[in-house]
């Protein structure tokens, strides 16, 4: 299988879906002539033309609202937020219009919003956020957050083909750092299915997005030094999340650390923890632990940002306490 960086897997999914279905079109700021702020759509304008690769004005509310309308009448828009942080400007459209149309009208809204998320790039408070929890709380939206090129391509294809609005969280930090095998033939990763990224028996780290790699790193370290065998369960989809996979893993390892790069309080981890407590309490050998970023805005200073993020050292400390419980 060819090896591709994460970012190219995203581009490939968009490209192939546009070739496959002429109702698929892209809209966003600087995605055409400029090729996208991160160059995800480089070459798309030349190939698909400006009716399908639309450079919009700088107006997130209008972008999301117009995408929603187009989706309702049968198009398959893929809207790009230049950074996930800017979805705040289109919040009303997403949570009020996009999310509730099907519930009220019975009409599908087959659209995707791509959200380049996350920190570790020293972008400061408004270019580093992980905003998934805001939307996790909004019934009517689906949320996916791939950590590998394979998952990114397969989930983006699934998202584009899905009849519901899907928020596609992609990670700037992973764009060029993570490479992996990606099949050249067509495939999808089904929405709602988690993936065991590392098998283990002593504890499970439930995570998604960039912290999957932090978890794998920590699990590797601990296997070397303490001979514990830690499982890493990558949720991949956040809404709906894979309840079955969570229960299976927890019932086997009996200890859980939930990890995400989003800030801790009110993060998705709380919901996962509640789900485990309600459904697998008697299988637990230790209280469910959670680790996320600190409950502060994202600081610019690289030293502070490192302190802010849930890095490997923090994961190791948590894991050790959990394993020794």
């Amino acid at each position, binding site marked *: 299988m060819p090896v591709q960086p994460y970012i190219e897997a995203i581009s490939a999914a968009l490209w192939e879906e546009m070739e496959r279905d002429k109702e698929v079109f892209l809209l966003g*700021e*600087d995605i055409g*002539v*400029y*090729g996208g*702020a991160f160059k995800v759509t480089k070459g798309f304008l030349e190939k698909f033309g*400006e*009716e399908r690769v639309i*450079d919009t*004005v*700088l*107006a997130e*509310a*209008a972008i999301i609202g117009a995408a929603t309308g187009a989706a309702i009448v049968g198009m398959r828009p893929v809207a790009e937020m230049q950074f996930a*942080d*800017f979805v*705040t*400007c289109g919040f009303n459209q997403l949570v009020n219009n996009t999310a509730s149309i099907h519930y009220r009208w019975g009409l599908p809204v087959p659209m995707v919003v791509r959200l380049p998320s996350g920190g570790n*790039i*020293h*972008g*400061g*408070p*408004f*270019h580093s956020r992980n905003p998934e929890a805001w939307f996790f709380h909004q019934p009517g939206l689906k949320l996916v957050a791939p950590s590998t090129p394979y998952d990114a391509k397969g989930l983006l294809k699934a998202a584009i083909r899905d009849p519901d609005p899907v928020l596609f969280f992609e990670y700037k930090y992973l764009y060029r750092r993570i490479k992996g095998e990606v099949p050249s033939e067509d495939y999808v990763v089904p929405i709602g299915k988690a993936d065991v990224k590392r098998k283990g028996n002593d504890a499970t780290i439930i995570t998604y997005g960039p912290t999957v790699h932090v978890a794998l790193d920590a699990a590797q370290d601990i296997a070397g030094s303490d001979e514990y065998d830690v499982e890493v369960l990558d949720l991949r989809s956040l809404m709906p999340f894979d309840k079955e996979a969570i229960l299976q893993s927890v019932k086997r390892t009996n200890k859980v650390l939930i990890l995400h790069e989003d800030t801790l309080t009110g993060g998705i981890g709380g919901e996962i923890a509640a789900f485990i407590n309600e459904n697998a309490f008697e299988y637990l050998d230790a209280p469910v632990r959670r680790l996320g970023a*600190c*409950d*502060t*805005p994202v*600081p*610019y*200073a*690289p*030293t*502070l940002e490192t*302190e*802010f993020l849930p890095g490997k050292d923090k994961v190791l400390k948590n894991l050790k306490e959990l394993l020794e419980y």
Partner: protein
Amino acid sequence: MAKSAAPKKKQSKANKTFDKAIKKTLTNQKAPLEGLDLSEEKLIQIYRQMLLIRRFEEKAAQMYGMEKIMGFCHLYNGQEAVAVGANAAMHETDYMLTAYRDHGHALVKGITANEVMAELFGKVTGCSRGKGGSMHLFDAEKRMMGGHAIVGGHIPLAAGFAFGSKYKAEQDVTVCFFGEAAANQGVFHETLNMAALWKLPVVYICENNRYGMGTAFERAFAVWDIYERASAYNMPRDVVDGMDVLDMYRKTKEAVDRARYEHIPTFLEARTYRFRGHSMSDPIHGHYRTKEEVEEMKAKDPIINFGELLKKENIFSEEQMKEMDDEIKKIVNESIEFAEKSEEPPLEDLYTDVIVE
């Protein structure tokens, strides 16, 4: 959907619209200083402020290349006359806000080169103790109210400052800068209407540098004379040569006076140009603008042209300029040293000030 390609013709038409305001550079006007209430001392100060910004930005670019500055960094080269000319018309106690291309505004509002450079380096001696970085420079005492990275997000804040000043019967004016792309956010329209309705002492200055990242203004605006948008709110409006510091001064002065003494807001569109890429990761020219265009606009360099004028008017000599340049370069070099030597923020700083303690 209408084809907006065949961009050549559209672009040359847009060029003409754009250039209407910036045809007459300082040097070829007959008597550019006539009728201006600017002392020679003040004129020299204006020149100095622009040069400081230019030299600072050149150094910042170099430091970014050396990875002393991380993340995102947007330089102000080419647009110096806008912030400097407008600032010359403001009182020290007037509020200033701008977007993320904010180094120039911060410097002219009196934040020292040391504090700005240290902020870019993420050091505790920076004006935001390293928490904000390049895009979020800030100093309440100097009334530099940011540095805002969400495009258009600060436009209503400015209305709030102006409301506060008016309510408390203070005579302060708020001057709010933003790039032309910000004028496409809904909040721009929401706020202009509110400012007009509430008769707020605020001046909005749109820095139209032709591009919002890689999108030319003619591809993003249904009406190219952006200043005309204020007509929808019955707000005084004007177009300014943003490459001409005196035109900036003159028109901002009128607007600021109108805000201060009559509580009438104004919308100014300053036509200007950025000489660098959108941010440090964007090349100067390439897919969305040509080298020729950049070179052509460099002939309108606001600092060179203003310097020529000062020489022609015998206000400032070549020699004095050279001396000033050396002095400024020293200040900028010292800011590097200062930033280098400064401490990283202590880790406890991460947790402080999230809310009032």
